[in-house]
């Protein structure tokens, strides 16, 4: 090989190394940002994180402010949302995977679900405002918010449940049908038990998305300053993210630290939910393999 050729190989290798470094930095960028974000929030929020913060109502004074109504509001909405969205989401997935005929109408439903998954969350808020708050006169209540959130996370639950159901080996299904069972007996006896871990994981992820959403609830009419806790589904409400939003936009600087404390609680709950999802999935998957 002459000198020119060697030179060329060298420059090609150099290009490769430079590019390697560049895209490695791209990947690390996310890690750096996450670390920075967590450090910032923990530094500001931890000193404000006390038992009083969890049990107090919001206040004009940063030191007395608490997140209790937000916590309970979020809990109400999450439970109702899950109760509404889980059966419908899983039911739709079963319908699409096991019952629906392969025709244009089924294709249309599938396309429609994929499109719904891409609709901005604030648009769901406007749907909730027009349909649940006004037309069905639920008012600016926990119930209206839960219906709105249920529609928002429905596409996510359907799509992940579909994937879980599709992963059931067809040999298991055939064996069940060969015993003379009806479709529904095969669904409840074979398909659902096998697909359940996947379905639950998808549902928990969808619910964590709902837990962090604020935009649709602002449109539906969540309150930003609440001095009571919702007792029935028809009461008004606030949620964790909306409390955080409210504190962040206060002119007093100390409220930013209160907001950080709220974010720690929110992220803590999300972390707990996600680890539960992972543990649940792993545990059940082993059980079925046995």
């Amino acid at each position, binding site marked *: 090989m002459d000198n020119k050729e060697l030179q060329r190989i060298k420059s090609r290798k150099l290009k490769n190394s430079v590019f390697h470094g560049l895209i490695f930095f791209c990947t690390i960028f996310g890690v750096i940002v996450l670390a920075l974000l967590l450090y910032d929030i923990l530094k500001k929020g931890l000193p404000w994180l006390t038992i009083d913060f969890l049990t107090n109502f919001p206040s004009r004074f940063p030191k007395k402010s608490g997140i209790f109504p937000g916590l309970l509001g979020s809990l109400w909405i999450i439970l109702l949302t899950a109760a509404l969205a889980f059966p419908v989401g899983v039911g739709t997935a079963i319908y699409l995977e096991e019952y629906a005929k392969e025709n244009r109408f089924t294709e249309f439903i599938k396309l429609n679900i994929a499109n719904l998954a891409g609709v901005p969350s*604030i*648009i769901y808020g406007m749907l909730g405002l027009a349909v649940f708050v006004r037309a069905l006169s639920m008012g600016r209540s926990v119930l209206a918010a839960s219906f709105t959130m249920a529609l928002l996370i429905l596409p996510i639950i359907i799509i992940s449940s579909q994937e879980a159901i599709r992963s059931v080996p067809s040999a298991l299904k055939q064996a069940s049908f060969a015993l003379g069972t*009806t479709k529904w007996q095969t669904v409840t006896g074979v398909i659902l038990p096998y697909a359940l871990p996947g379905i639950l994981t998808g549902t928990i992820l969808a619910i964590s998305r709902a837990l962090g959403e*604020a935009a649709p609830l602002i449109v539906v009419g969540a309150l930003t300053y609440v001095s009571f806790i919702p007792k029935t589904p028809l009461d008004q409400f606030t949620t964790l993210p909306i409390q955080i939003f409210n504190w962040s936009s206060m002119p007093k600087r100390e409220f930013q630290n209160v907001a950080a404390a709220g974010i720690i609680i929110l992220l803590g709950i999300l972390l707990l939910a996600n680890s539960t999802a992972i543990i649940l999935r792993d545990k059940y998957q082993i059980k079925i393999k046995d």
Partner: protein
Amino acid sequence: MKKIDFKSKSGMQRNEKIVSSVLFLFGIISIFTTFGIVFSLFEETVLFFKEVSILDFLTGKEWTPLFEPARFGVLPLVFGTFLIVIFSSIISLPIGLGSAIYLSEYAPKKARKILKPILEILAGVPSIVYGYFALTTITPIIKSIFPDASVYNALSAGIAVGIMTIPMVSSLSEDAMMAVPNSLRQGAYGLGSTKFEVATKIVIPAAFSSIMASFILAISRAIGETMIVAMAAGSTPKMTLNPLESIQTMTGYIVQISLGDVPYGSIGYKTIFAVGTLLFTITFILNIISRTIVRKFRRVY
């Protein structure tokens, strides 16, 4: 073990029928949702256009619906949204694509195992947290570099939206690159190519349509992003291309009005539905384009 009662065959068939019709009803709820969205948006929007002409709305350069004289030109909100899209894309598209290339072509298995979950965590952080981050961390950094930047500015919000959409670009593009068959790579390596050459000349062209689709989805997501812009971008509708100024986006306007006390049926109430219709239409078209690109231009190996 449950026993199956084979005697009541007709009963079983009846149950089957009931079950399948209930499931069918669940299936069409999603269609009702779409119709619900379209209908509820259009109903108020039609009322709005009885008072304001469509042309004034789409081409007007002033947006002052709640002041006198009230003007209903939506362009300032569209411009604001556009600024956010530009700056978020500058962050999310190259960084997302870069990390996708790294994860799919360069990363050793161990690095992948650590880095992928971190990107997933980044995707799971609620947008309100990014909004807080923009307001309390990114904005002070911008202000220390550009002292005359406004407290609420498009740049800060745009960067935060960009960071939020990185995992989306990254994971969708990575999936596309992983789907490129290994034989193509082996062929190029056999000719003595470097990893850089394989990535840029083989893998990216082969996965190009899906990468483009992921870019469009990220842009659509940036257009619909709400809490970050509501917290960090300000609330002054303005036709400007200066990212250091306070602006307002379409979503930001809807939040501002929803927070205030706008009575049902008033012109202010109708404006959010008109803006919502525009927002829905834009994101809907982008999502369709992205899906069409994937379907039409996908190479099957």
